[in-house]
């Protein structure tokens, strides 16, 4: 059985420098816009300036008269798409406008400067209809989706929550909100599209070359083999590049009209706030009940969030609540408002990130209500088994993380009383929160291993490295799987020319791609032995893991945060954070650490900075740039103490790894919020915690 195959090579676990480091530090690694193509054209989109209605006229005459103009594409002349069932992708197929900022056309020109100018000269008239673009708690049209993202059930209930709550010795009933947030990878969503003799090549900034290939082939009605997607380097994604969005279709549509010439399209930063996904705002009500000893007896987590009228995305906000703590009774619900807005999508730990903010803030409040240390309160509610599946955990070391973190951070002598410490003009507080993230296993990935002579092996898989370190980690995995040293591996990824790889998402990449490589290596040795001939080759698929029937598989972690709040201005600063993780085996200690600090900092960002402000009158995000949509600067981040528990999990996959891309953000915002409360005595339940909310 594959899950019992253990490696002894020693490449896995090494703290290796990134093999693509030299290209990245010199800036010579080509991202999507930077591939050399001959004679390129430039695309600038035309976007709807109403939130709902119809386009009644487009006057492009002024644009078309510009020197250097090639063409203007609109719904009046765009090629027909073969499959318009995904309405997010079915652009320029009708005059309908479903949200503000929707692509209603594009200008293609010889230079970027001309394309941008021309797009501004296109005059569009509309028949405008009333729209609703803001999530409201009392929306009468809230509905119950059939299921949630990743296939989770919408609602769950065990035991009699209402009875348990009403008879609980200690209760909490609070409302927490998280705002709309945008992924904003540093590299904007980008495509170079080129049609040649019926074949489409896309240089694409994506988390999954093959998923883009499949979707684009379907939308255009092409055989998959006619679409090639190239993505060797990707400037971040955090989920927004997990699924192809309309910008990719727009570039491909435009390129189809100009056969033989590549069309370049990179979104502006402002355009990144429309149409490439976002984290839905949430309104969450949490009710907790506990007995006198601080054992939870009731947990109720009810979520309201939004989706788009043109396509449903139902985020799994309360899913972590279904299993993290033990209780006699539990209920979780999700309700959606369908609005005239772009389609929400994945943003790093969709569901867990906003949901665990609310739950872990509520746990902090409840610990105080129960007069218990927040770590002790969590330990007291540690479950025996996974309540959602009824299965035992393959490994669960949350308590170990909490204890280890407490030691490293210096939690022991913490005075629980809020607003009790001041250094100079700074109020000082500390906070803790738990973290959890499931081990996802996506089907279908394949890896090829080929002996290339001279002791060297080619390993090919279409996987994407979006900054995770896959370029390096997959070499380490390959070396151990094949039983050679890392220098003997020629890794090839980031291209649909190589075997199918599922998306770099759900923290699943290493689990599924690594498992495919292990399987291919096993079969290779089986067929070709230890002394293969040059050209010997094997392709294998990620095997099923029968242990998923027997065990619930989750990663865990704990955060500790010191927050300082200026007593005069209520500016919040976080000089130190600590994170302890139980995530199975670490493939590369160096790049893993980066994943953790990146996730934790994004949680810090969620706690203090990020908020996309929608102006309901217009229907779009008004703070759509990096000056107004704040993400942390270097000065906002202090010291990060990262460590992990040695965790041996023989059930998850041959590497023993659980996936680490997302767990870093889950609960991190709550730890910051809890520290701010400890510092100030003010409980801000609506993120982000900005000075205006603390100033009294």
């Amino acid at each position, binding site marked *: 059985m594959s899950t019992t195959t253990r490696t002894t090579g020693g490449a896995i676990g090494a703290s290796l420098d990134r093999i693509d480091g030299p290209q990245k530090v*010199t800036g010579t690694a080509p991202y999507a816009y*930077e591939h050399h193509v001959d004679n390129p054209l430039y695309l600038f989109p035309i976007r709807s300036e109403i939130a709902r209605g119809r386009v009644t006229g487009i006057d492009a005459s002024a644009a078309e008269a510009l020197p250097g103009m090639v063409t203007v594409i609109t719904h009046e002349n765009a090629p027909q798409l073969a499959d318009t069932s995904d309405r997010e992708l079915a652009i320029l197929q009708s005059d309908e406008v479903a949200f503000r900022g929707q692509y209603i056309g594009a200008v293609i020109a010889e230079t970027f400067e*001309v394309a941008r100018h021309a797009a501004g000269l296109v005059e569009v008239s509309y028949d405008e209809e009333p729209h609703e673009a803001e999530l409201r708690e009392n929306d009468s049209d809230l509905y119950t989706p059939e299921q949630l993202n990743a296939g989770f059930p919408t609602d769950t209930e065990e035991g009699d929550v209402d009875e348990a709550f009403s008879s609980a010795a200690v209760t909490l009933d609070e409302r927490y909100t998280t705002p709309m947030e945008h992924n904003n990878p540093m*590299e904007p969503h980008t495509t170079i599209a080129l049609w040649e003799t019926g074949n489409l090549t896309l240089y694409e900034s994506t988390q999954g070359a093959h998923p883009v290939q499949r979707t684009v082939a379907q939308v255009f009605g092409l055989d998959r083999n006619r679409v090639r997607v190239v993505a060797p380097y990707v400037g971040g994604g955090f989920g927004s590049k997990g699924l192809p969005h309309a910008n990719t279709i727009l570039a491909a549509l435009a390129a189809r009209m100009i056969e033989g010439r590549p069309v370049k399209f990179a979104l502006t930063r402002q355009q990144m706030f429309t149409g490439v996904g976002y984290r839905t705002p949430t309104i969450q009500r949490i009710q907790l009940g506990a007995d006198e000893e601080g054992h939870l007896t009731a947990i109720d987590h009810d979520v309201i969030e939004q989706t788009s009228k043109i396509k449903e995305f139902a985020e799994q906000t309360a899913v972590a609540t279904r299993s993290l703590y033990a209780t006699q009774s539990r209920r979780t619900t999700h309700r959606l408002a369908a609005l005239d807005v772009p389609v929400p999508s994945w943003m790093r730990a969709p569901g867990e990130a906003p949901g665990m903010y609310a739950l872990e803030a509520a746990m902090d409040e409840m610990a105080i209500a129960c007069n218990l240390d927040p770590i002790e309160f969590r330990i007291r509610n540690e479950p025996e088994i996974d309540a959602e599946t009824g299965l035992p955990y393959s490994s669960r070391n949350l308590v170990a993380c909490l204890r280890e973190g407490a030691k490293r951070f210096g939690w022991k002598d913490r005075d629980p009383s809020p607003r009790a410490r001041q250094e100079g003009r700074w109020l000082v507080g500390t906070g803790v929160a738990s973290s959890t993230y499931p081990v996802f296993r996506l089907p279908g990935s394949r890896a090829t291993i080929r002996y290339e002579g001279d002791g060297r092996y080619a390993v090919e898989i279409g996987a994407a490295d979006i900054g995770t370190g896959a370029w390096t980690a997959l070499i380490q995995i390959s070396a151990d799987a094949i039983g050679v040293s890392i220098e003997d591996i020629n890794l090839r990824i980031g291209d649909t020319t190589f075997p199918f790889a599922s998306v770099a998402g759900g923290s699943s990449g290493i689990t599924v791609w690594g498992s495919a490589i292990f399987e291919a290596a096993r079969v290779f040795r089986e067929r070709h032995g230890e002394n293969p001939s040059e050209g010997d080759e094997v392709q294998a698929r990620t095997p099923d893991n029968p242990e998923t029937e027997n065990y619930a598989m989750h990663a865990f972690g704990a955060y500790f945060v010191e927050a300082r709040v200026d007593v005069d201005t209520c500016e919040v600063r976080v000089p130190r954070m600590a994170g302890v993780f139980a995530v199975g085996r670490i493939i590369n200690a160096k790049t893993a650490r980066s994943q953790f600090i990146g996730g934790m*900092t994004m949680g810090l960002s969620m706690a203090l900075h990020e908020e996309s402000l929608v102006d309901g009158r217009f229907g779009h995000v008004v703070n759509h740039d990096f000056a107004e949509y704040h993400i942390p600067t*270097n*000065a906002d981040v202090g010291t990060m103490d990262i460590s992990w528990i040695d965790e041996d999990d023989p059930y998850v996959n041959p590497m023993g790894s659980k996936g680490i891309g997302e767990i870093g953000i889950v609960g991190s915002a709550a730890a910051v919020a809890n520290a701010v409360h400890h510092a100030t005595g003010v409980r801000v339940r609506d993120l982000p915690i900005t000075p205006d909310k603390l100033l009294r």
Partner: protein
Amino acid sequence: MDAEITLHVDGAEHRLTVDTRTTLLDALREHLEIISPKKGCDHGQCGACTVLLDGRRANSCLALAVAHDGTEIVTAGGLAENGDLHPMQRSFIEHDGFQCGYCTPGQIVSAVGMLEEVRAGWPSHVTEDLNVEEIVLDDDEIRERMSGNLCRCAAYANIVPAIREGSER
């Protein structure tokens, strides 16, 4: 409207014709195919496009190419001499001061330019004594001085030691 200009980039001279609207960043990337400076926001709000402009770090996205005719430009690609990485580049690799790598060339050029500012005795927002003769480049100074370079992967906690050690080499 077009203009003919000369740019000295990473030691090489280039004559090129640019639209007066073309930024230095787009001139480098689209005309000269020098891809080290990256376009992250195009509005001076992220720092990914940072180059040394006549020796000082600057956002090339807000500099019009035509207005910088004749200038000396150094990109991250030009910091590596004869294929040998600059000490700052080696330090970024060793400390894993990046993940996706898109902000990285800008971070490194910014760090190199920043060290010159420190050597010149320029204070920063966090310099305690504005009149100090010599700047002590502690971690808070690095953090503040590098805050014009955003990193969404949030490698900051690695960038700081990378620069601390890179500056000592």
